[in-house]
């Protein structure tokens, strides 16, 4: 039976690469307006799952539904329903903040009459109005991330996918980015699906989390419930991760992922 409040539904999703399974029969759903953290170390299957849900990858088996549309059959509709902020810096440093936003406004078919107003609103919402005509290569890391969020919300999508949104940011910039994301949820009931390998971040902002381990969901639920199950005093989400996966959260991932992360951290620096 379809749950009216359900905006993301993943059913028995599998992704195989050359004989190995990156994602192994995972199922979950996310409610409208929920902040859902998808946790796990590099190589756990988080990014593969997100790529399937944003229509960049076809699943080997299973289904993903976004706001009633299949990521396999209705990719075009799904793309209009979602905003996406990749892990790496994806704004163009040689364009201004306004030009970066205008590019997305035109690619998302925002009517000509509305573009200027939307860009103004987004710049104002993200406190970037004063740097509207500044080249993005002069921005700080936190400003870059905010502009990327601006590009992703310009067409007012009901679901926002963020892949490691605070990777490489200092604690002040991290808080500032989340301040705006929480405000976005408060104002528009936007569903926020984010991946991270920072447990403290997820513990602080997520309504619910799924812990990915070796391509499977090892545990899923409210942060406090998962922590409670560890039966440890003053436990954290990191303790819950160890409890459910039987392993400490380590920096894993391949050379390419490590290079990407370091490059992002350097550029946001």
């Amino acid at each position, binding site marked *: 039976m379809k749950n009216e409040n359900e905006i993301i539904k993943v059913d028995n999703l599998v992704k195989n690469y050359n004989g190995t399974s990156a994602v192994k029969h995972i199922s979950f759903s996310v409610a409208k307006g929920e902040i859902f953290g998808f946790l796990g170390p590099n190589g756990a299957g988080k990014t593969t799952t997100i790529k399937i849900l944003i229509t960049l990858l076809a699943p080997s088996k299973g289904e993903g539904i976004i706001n009633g549309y299949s990521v396999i059959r209705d990719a075009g509709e799904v793309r*209009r329903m979602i905003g996406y902020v990749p892990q*790496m810096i994806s704004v163009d440093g*040689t364009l201004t903040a306004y030009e970066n936003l205008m*590019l*997305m406004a035109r*690619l998302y078919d925002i009517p000509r009459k509305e573009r200027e107003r939307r860009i103004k609103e987004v710049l104002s919402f993200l406190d970037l109005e004063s740097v509207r005509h500044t080249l993005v290569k002069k921005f700080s890391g936190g400003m870059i991330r905010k502009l990327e969020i601006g590009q992703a919300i310009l067409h007012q999508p009901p679901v926002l996918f963020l892949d490691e949104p605070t990777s490489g940011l200092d604690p002040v910039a991290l808080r500032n980015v989340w301040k705006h994301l929480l405000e976005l949820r408060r104002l528009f009931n936007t569903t926020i699906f984010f991946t991270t390998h920072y447990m403290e971040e997820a513990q602080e902002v997520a309504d619910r989390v799924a812990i990915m381990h070796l391509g499977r969901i090892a545990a899923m639920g409210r942060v406090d419930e998962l922590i409670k199950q560890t039966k440890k005093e003053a436990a954290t989400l990191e303790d819950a991760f160890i409890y459910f996966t039987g392993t400490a959260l380590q920096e894993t991932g391949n050379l390419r992922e490590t290079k990407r992360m370091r490059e992002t951290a350097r550029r946001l620096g």
Partner: protein
Amino acid sequence: MRYLIEIIVKSYVLAEMEIRKLLHDPTELVTRAVQPILWLGIFGEALSKVHAIPTKGFTYLQFITPGILTQSVVFISIFYGLSIIWERDMGILQKFLVTPTPRLALVWGKILSSGVRGISQAVIIFLFAVLLRIHLRFTALSIVGTILIVILGGGFFTGLSMIIASIVKTRERFIGIGQVITLPLFFASNAIYPIAIMPPWLQFIATINPLSYMVDGLRAILVTGDVSILPFDIAILTVATLVISFVSSYLYPKVVG
């Protein structure tokens, strides 16, 4: 029809952003101009003294100017694949692929962008040709024809490079392959010597090399004035570019896989 209009409009949007980038930082245009200037100023000047290559009554510098322009456009275009890999690594490509933009528009946007860069090279090479007193035909037809051939020819090699990028997937491999194919493409064409003096096997390669049709068309409008073969050259380039852009639009989203 609506879909075709969407493709054209969004291709233009992407190309316009490329122009804005060039306007913000035109350094690239200057640095890219060095190589064709060296080819014309040193190689062309030196060989024009030898009189060893038959050029049908035109100076050697006149003969090779369209070839050097073609080379410059092809070198710019062929490394667009590298930018695709870079954009993939940065997440820019993923972000574009997640927008409701037709895949073909993303390819045509790149093709137009490489055309913009190619046209800027044409302007620089023409200015240098004037400086070297190389007589070229500057008419409305030659200017429009140059723009068309640069966009079509550059488009073919941009599409080809995007296909290569979708197969090799890494910057290191792409740079290796890019270097392996660009110079042979250039030498196996009529860019710096006529096809007639080549051995038969090389003549065959030159005949199926789209670069030869670019040179042929540019030479007709800029040097000889005999445009009888021009429709054929443009038809070949149009078909080749369309075919490769369709193949590329299917293959290059796989670079993110």
